[in-house]
């Protein structure tokens, strides 16, 4: 298993009055080639967890296994740079990291840092801009003049241009309108299916988990509470209730129908299939 946490603990500001244990002996293995959602309440350690994946944080205790590399607290930061080439981390509100004069230069910045040649970087930048749905005609514009959604796509392109095997996104749809977040999620599905990237998404939106993700990891109070496939997860009503998770609308509607006597087949998770199934029942 190329991504695994083994008894990983992380404490912020150890040895001070502000000391705070964000992760407590987390054991977790992430499946490659899938889209994994990481959910949990605010302060449950989601962001701390994902920052271990490209060694921005090194575990206080335990070890993280990422693509045949073992990260412990003893590793020197210098040795960790090559890891960041393979694991791309997109932070919350990534649009604030843009700084170059033009969109193109900003996207090229990452690959150039990892020693890619100028030409190759440019080629990759143009490609990734197209992938994230940015019209190449604005490549010479200043990133600061663009809209929020466009900026975010450019920031994501900036990470994708590094060509990481694993893409980690911390609340990529925060602050986007419903249409924008839908197409953003579709982009990640495309990256996963078409470009075979392993994708990890930190999110609060259960609809996104249901519709776009394969696996789900639930964090609570610095611990990994459960890790299973999305299908199993949303079928386990008792667990959902225990974890106080808001069930997606489609599933709640289905549940209400079942209570009213109309039981539909298992595994329906999107609106259209549900509509068809109901229509099939109603028609004589």
């Amino acid at each position, binding site marked *: 298993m190329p991504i695994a946490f083994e008894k990983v603990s992380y404490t912020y500001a150890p040895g001070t009055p502000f000391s705070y244990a964000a992760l407590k002996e987390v054991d977790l293995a992430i499946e490659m080639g899938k889209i994994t959602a990481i959910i949990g309440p605010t302060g449950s350690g989601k962001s701390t967890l994902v920052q271990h994946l490209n060694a921005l944080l090194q575990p206080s205790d335990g070890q993280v296994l990422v693509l045949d590399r073992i990260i412990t607290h003893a590793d020197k930061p210098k040795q960790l740079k090559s890891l960041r080439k393979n694991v791309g981390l997109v932070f919350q509100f990534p649009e604030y990291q843009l*700084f170059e004069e033009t969109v193109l230069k900003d996207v090229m910045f990452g690959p150039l*840092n990892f020693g890619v040649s100028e030409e190759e970087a440019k080629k990759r930048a143009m490609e990734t801009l197209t992938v994230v749905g940015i019209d190449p005609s604005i490549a010479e514009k200043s990133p600061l003049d663009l809209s929020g959604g466009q900026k975010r796509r450019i920031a994501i392109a900036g990470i994708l241009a590094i060509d990481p095997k694993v893409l980690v996104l911390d609340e990529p749809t925060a602050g986007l309108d419903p249409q924008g977040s839908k197409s953003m999620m579709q982009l990640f599905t495309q990256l996963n299916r078409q470009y075979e990237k392993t994708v990890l998404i930190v999110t609060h939106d259960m609809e996104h988990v249901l519709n776009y993700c394969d696996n789900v990891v639930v964090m609570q109070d610095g611990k990994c509470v459960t890790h299973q496939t999305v299908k199993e997860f949303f079928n386990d009503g008792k667990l959902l209730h225990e974890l106080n998770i808001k069930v997606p609308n489609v599933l709640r509607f289905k549940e209400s129908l079942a209570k009213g006597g109309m039981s539909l087949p298992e595994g329906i998770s999107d609106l259209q299939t549900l509509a068809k199934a109901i229509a099939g029942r109603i028609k004589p």
Partner: protein
Amino acid sequence: MSNIALGRYIPLDSLIHKLDPRMKIIAMFFLLIAVFVPAGYPGYGVLGVFIVSVLLIAKLRLNFIFRAMKPMAFMLVFLLMINVLVLRTGYVLFSFYGFTVYSDAIYQTLYITFRLALMIMITTALTATTKPLDLTLAIEDLLGPLKRFGVPAHEIAMMISIALRFIPTLIEETQRIMKAQASRGVDLKEGKFKEKIMAILSLIVPLFVSSFQRAEDLADAMEARGYVPSATRTRYKQLKRTLKDYIMLFVVLLLLGGLITLAFVV
């Protein structure tokens, strides 16, 4: 960031903490004047004992004071070197390789060291025992009489308190952007000179952009709530002078007077 000692407020419960911030500022002002009274080493001795006892009453630990003084170590080494090279008065202390060091060079350096140490201790006694917001309130009050001459006392105080309010926010923001850029392969510690410049640029530009954004948002929010700087307003927190404050100021003035006497009369 948590290891910066200079100018940091230490929340403790002591007599000094409870004094009126306005009186503390005035007292600090007089004490700083006292540092420049040419009363020689005995004068510095008296002043030093006074300040150290104030810091002890404030329940501050002395190693905190030393940490606050750390930044000036470099300056003092520099000063010592200049003095050794330039000052050629006093008696010869020692010489090596045909190079002589005179006593005044050492004395001058020590003199300035004492002065700086005292000044840092005095200002630390104020900043470590007074909440930044109380300080700005006090500054506003003290500048109040100058309003007649067009000094924007309230505006200055508001600017200072906003600046103080945003220091932790900016530190957090900086760390966030540093991490984001590190994910893009930026390495602030290693790399060639040109790469380092790029790295710093990749940090400063986003920081500037978001600071301007924040400033604009804050200005909008303040205007939306009808903020008018010149409006007369009441305060939730009232500063009160008590007998203790007057006693403190009296003691400080007595000390200043004593030092002046020591310098010019004795």
